[in-house]
Structures are given as structure tokens and as C-alpha cells.
């Protein structure tokens, strides 16, 4: 692997100062240089840390209180209840059902989004100018459509009695949202439709930025298309793929609008609840703000763990991010 990526490295201007690697290279000058990026990060950190820290802090605090509607608006004192909200939540079978179907639903959406996005990105590099423009335009349209609008339009298409799809298929009276997984599948399609353009455009940009000379060199060395893809393109695309995968996991795990709008707040008897909608139902429909906050905290932790593991796995495989 290292040998095949060498051409890519050689293509760049040689890195002038050798990067300090490990403890042995920690010279004085190396140390001073390594502070520089942090100073550059400072302005954004000053904005981002309070902006994310404060809501997270409030969320965490809320999850340890008993905080309902009387506390929110009638001036009742909020009591500290320790881990009560968490134990209520973890002892509730519905929470585990919702968690497991959220994971399955999100995983399916991530895989489908990446597959569709990557396939179309490759297609973009292979077709002529006009089909490419058309495809880009259509994808941008889907991307630009607000989740609310997109969901509503798809709902109309699949309406039980008046929908175009039932009309064309001759299935009037068939309710796509009646069965749990049929409803999830339909919502999943809309989620993918909304999010594949990001994957497609990012990967397309990545593929286009691979220097032709590298691919030529690989071909001259006798690499097959697959080898070229696996050992030349993929390593170069890896940083983009990482971002795209993490983004997709976060988006699809947190999906809200499509489920809320299309299944009317969680489906028949709550069969299509995902964590985010569940948290919303607890916090805002039932006015159990503290329980909703506890769900929010758990979601944040789950996503943090997923992201950290993913980044570490990448690091271990020896690729730079």
C-alpha cells in the first residue's frame, strides 16, 4: 500500500521541514512550530466552544432535574433527581425498541446513501457534458429541497387514496405507512433522496482532483482498473470518504423531519419512532423536558462514541486524515 501511494506523495512539492515524529524529534524549534495551528484555531474555538458548550451544558443539567410544564411556566422549583431520568429511560422497553430500530434505520440509510452517492459520482465522471449537467442539476434540486417540502411531496405521491403511485400501480386504498417496515422503507428513500447529493458531489470533486499523472503512472506500471481503484484512488479519496461517512451517520441517526412529517409524528401506534422524534414526543408533546433531555444526552454520547471509534479505526489502519 505504501509503495503505491508514493507517486501521490512525489507529486506534491517535497515537504521542506521534516515533521516531528514521536518523542525523539521533539526539538525546540519543532515544538514552537506545533503551537502555531492552535493559535490559528483560537478564533473559531472562541465562538464554537460557547456555542456548543452552553446548550450541551443545559441539556446535561436538565437531564438530572425533574422538569415538566409546571417548572417551565408556572414557577415551580425544579428538583435535582440524580440519575432518575436515565433509569426510567433505560428501564422502559419502548426506549430499547426505538433505539434498535433507529440504529437499523440509520445504518440502512447510510449504506444506501453512500452506495447511491458513490455510484452516481462515478457515473458523473464517465458521461458527457450535458447528461452530467442534467444529473448535477437534478441532484442539486433534491439537495436544495427543504426536508419539510420534500417529505410532503413524497407523501402526496404515496397517498393512500389520491396518490400518483397507487394510481399508476392500480393499488388504490393501499396504505404505505400501515406496515412498520414499509413505512420505514419509504421514509428511508426520502432520506436518501435528500442526502445523496452531498455524497455524490463530494466524491465527484474528490475523483476529479486526482491528478491524471498518478493514474497514468499506475496504468504504466500495469495496474488493472480494480487495483487502480483500490490502491490509488481509494487512499486519495479516504479523507473525503471519512467525512462523508461520519456526516451521513450523524444525519441519519438524527433524522427527524422526514419521520415526523411523513408518519404523523411516529406512525400508527408509534411504530415508526426514531430516537430524535421520541425525544421530541417526550420533551414537547408530553412536557417531560428532563426525560427528553436525557434522551438527547444519550444520543450525543452514542454519536460521539461512533465517531471516535471510526476515526481511531482509520488512524490505526495507518492512513492520515
Amino acid at each position, binding site marked *: 500500500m505504501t509503495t503505491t501511494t508514493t507517486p501521490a506523495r512525489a507529486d506534491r512539492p517535497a515537504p521542506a521541514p521534516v515533521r516531528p515524529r514521536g518523542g525523539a524529534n521533539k526539538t525546540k524549534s519543532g515544538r514552537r512550530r506545533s503551537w502555531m495551528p492552535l493559535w490559528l484555531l483560537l478564533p473559531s474555538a472562541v465562538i464554537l466552544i460557547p456555542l456548543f458548550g452552553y446548550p450541551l451544558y443545559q441539556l446535561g443539567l436538565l437531564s438530572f432535574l425533574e422538569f415538566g*410544564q409546571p417548572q*417551565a*411556566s408556572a*414557577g415551580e422549583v425544579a428538583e435535582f433527581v440524580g440519575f432518575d431520568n436515565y433509569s426510567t429511560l433505560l428501564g422502559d422497553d419502548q426506549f430499547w425498541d426505538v433505539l434498535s430500530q433507529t440504529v437499523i434505520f440509520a445504518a440502512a440509510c447510510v449504506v444506501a446513501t453512500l452506495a447511491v452517492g458513490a455510484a452516481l459520482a462515478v457515473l458523473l465522471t464517465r458521461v458527457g457534458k450535458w447528461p452530467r449537467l442534467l444529473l448535477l442539476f437534478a441532484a442539486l434540486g433534491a439537495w436544495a429541497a427543504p426536508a419539510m417540502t420534500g417529505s410532503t411531496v413524497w407523501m402526496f405521491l404515496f397517498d393512500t387514496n389520491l396518490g400518483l403511485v397507487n394510481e399508476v400501480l392500480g393499488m388504490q386504498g393501499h*396504505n404505505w405507512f*400501515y406496515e412498520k417496515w414499509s413505512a420505514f422503507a419509504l421514509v428511508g428513500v426520502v432520506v436518501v433522496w435528500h442526502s445523496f447529493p452531498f455524497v455524490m458531489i463530494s466524491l465527484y470533486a474528490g475523483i476529479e482532483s486526482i491528478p491524471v499523472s498518478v493514474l497514468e503512472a499506475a496504468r504504466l506500471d500495469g495496474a488493472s482498473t480494480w487495483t487502480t481503484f483500490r490502491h490509488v484512488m481509494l487512499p486519495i479519496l479516504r479523507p473525503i470518504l471519512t467525512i462523508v461517512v461520519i456526516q451521513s451517520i450523524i444525519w441519519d441517526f438524527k433524522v427527524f423531519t422526514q419521520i415526523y412529517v411523513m408518519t404523523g*409524528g411516529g406512525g*400508527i401506534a408509534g411504530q415508526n419512532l426514531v430516537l430524535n422524534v421520541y425525544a421530541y414526543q417526550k420533551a414537547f408533546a408530553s412536557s417531560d423536558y428532563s426525560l427528553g433531555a436525557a434522551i438527547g444526552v444519550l444520543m450525543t454520547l452514542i454519536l460521539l462514541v461512533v465517531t471516535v471509534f471510526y476515526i481511531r479505526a482509520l488512524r490505526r489502519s495507518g492512513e492520515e486524515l
Partner: protein
Amino acid sequence: MKIRSLAAVAVAGIALAACAPGTASKSKSADEQTGTLKVWLYDEANRAPKEKVVNAAVADFKAAHPKVNVEVGYIPTDAGPRAEKMKGAFNDPNSAPDVVEFGNTDLFGYVAAGGLADISADLDTWSEVGDLPKDLKDTTLVDGKTYGLPWWLGLRSLYYRTDVFTELGIKPPTSYAELVEAAKKVRSAKPDMFGIAVGGKYTFGGLPFVWAGGGDIATQQGGKYVATIDSPQSQAGVKAYTDLFGKDICPPQQCADLTGGKTVEAFAAGTAGMAILPNSSRSAVEAGVAKGKYAVVPLPGNTPGSIAPAFSGGNDLGVMKSSQHRSLAVDFMKILGGKKYQLQMFDAMGNLPTLASARGDVVAKDPWLKPFIDTLNAGTKFVPKDAAWAKIDAQSVVPTMFQKVVTGKSDVSGATGEAKTAIDNAFAGK
């Protein structure tokens, strides 16, 4: 680097530790005499005639208060979205209205949330207060204080299509068994119609069946409410209602997710032979193809000739505790809630007036109301008068119970058992 950023986080943490979660500042009501008076009313299935009457009331009000602007907003009637809207208003007084219309069942939760103003003194001095029956006034009391002005009554009865019934030679049902029979006949003769439009999310369409057999959501035992939705009588009622969801009456695929509003639309659009609708749906029904081709009878109970107890529904007008225009708000409420506009609202929407003389007037001149008055006289039921009802309603406990049975996810005893747990938890404040 690590140490520094950790220190920064720690400092930020300490700085923030002083703050508690956002609590609406104790509402400071004021009594400004100018500015904009905000009013929130229900967005009924057919809003146009209601809007017309309300606009006339606004004009009346403006004649007395020329410097005041009135802004009327219409909020969703479905329990979930409505509760969210109202809680938003409680939590942020700046975006709250001054005058609100709310369901009489919502009052207890709203009062517990500190959202409504005590208007006892204002109503006592109202010229029309003597016309308001005591039993209705009592529905707006919490700890002896009045928080609402009963505006109109909504009683549900059975609407049916006279043309279809005549064509098929069916008589209006007088018992549950006849209701089922009639519904099946309609559906088998007209496959594009529901025998009766029922909905999995239609709480007050389903509850009369529970009440008809002597069941209830909860009963008061020693000053505390205990769920009785799983009692044998209640279970029989749940079964009776959910049995109407079948391919031969109202297919679960299409009916499991219907709300009360959707059954109004189905009946008005001519896709249902019968429906359990309130008197206030009159204008919506008459705006559709069912106009002139329907009649109303009381919803039958189990034994022939009996009437299933209806939910004593209706809406109140109230003043928000956070209102900055308290006396203007009270004035507007009195105008819109007075006899003049109660009568107009009846003409426009079919809303039954709460003021005794107004109700007497409309009942005398309009025989259309007879089945509703018969239902009223046969005895009505109400939801638990407790703040917990707001939570039970918002959590969709009753619809979820119906939907689980209708979709076959659970049997009647399983679904009612789950509902009992949820209801008892709500009363226990969990």
C-alpha cells in the same frame, strides 16, 4: 495544549454553572390600553364561516377601542400540534396571545402550567353571566377560581347518508348491533364507501362505546383517579369500537390512522355512509357533497333504543396569564363569548351556544339540533378533571390503544393493560 483547552472548558463550565435551565420569567401581566391584541382560535375543518363571524366581532371591538389592533391567528385542532403551540406560548410569554380558545378538557393542564389568568372577578361583573348555566361554569373551575368562559358545546351524534340508506332500505340504527349491520350493508353495496368512518386517532369517537357499556378511562377513588380502562366493561367497549375497523366496514389500512377531523372530511366528501361527528361539523359537512343528503340520530348504545353517552365537549375562551393587555383581552372575550356572537357562531358553524337563552332560541327554531339535545339530555361524560389528562392526551394513550388493537399488534386486554399503566403513571406524575 490539552491542559490549556481543558482549563478553558473548566472556566467556561464554572461561568455557566450559575445559570439554571430556562424558566419563563414569572409572567408579569400588564394592562396596556393600546397596541396589538393577539387572539388564537381553533382552525376548524371549515374555517371560512368562522373567520367571518370572528371578523365581525373584531370590528365590534375596534369600534369601542379604535386605537387597538387585533391580530387573529388560527391554531391546529389536533391534540399534539395544539399542545405544542400552547406550551410554546406558556414558555415564551413574548410570543403568546392575549385571548385563547381552548378545549374544555385542556383547561386543567393549562392552569397547572400557569398559562391562564384567573378571570373570576371579570366574569362576575359581566352582564350576561346570569345566562350561563352553573354546570357549565363548574367545568371551568379549579380550586374555586374561574379560568374560562364556556363558548360553545360540541356533542357527537351519528350522521348518516339518507340517500344511501333509502336506496338500500336501511333504517337508522337504534342499537350497536344495528349499527354494525347497517355499516356492513353500506360497504358491501358501495365498496368505495366506508360503512362508518371511524378513526384510530379519534379518541372521542371511540370513547362513547367504552362509556356505553359502563366503562371509563379512570374513576375517582378516594379523591384520586385510578385508571379503569382495562375493566371488563371498558374492554368490551374497546372491542366494540375496534370491531368497526374491518375490511367489511372501515378497512384498517385506511382507517387506523384517521383523526376525528379526517372522518369529518370523509363524510363530507361522500366516502362514508355514517360518521360520529359533533354538531360543530355541520358547516364542514354541508360544504361537501353530503349536503342535503344526510340526517342525524343519537349514537345508539348497546340495548335497542338506548343512547351511548357522548363526550360533553366544547370550547372555552380564556385570557393568558402573561397578557400585556388584560382588560382589553377580557373585553374582547366578553364580546366574542356573548349572546350576539354565540348565535352567529351557531348559524355559521353549528356550534351549540352555552348561554341558556341563546341555546333555547336556536333549539326552538332549528329542529336539526334535536338529536344533539336528546344526546345531551340522555347524560354526557367527561374526561378526568385533572392536569394529568393533558399528558394522557398529548401522549396519545387512547389512540395508541385503539391503533394497537386495530392493526393486530396487540389484543384488547394487552392494549388496555398498557393504556392503564400509562394513565396511572400520568396521574402519579411520572
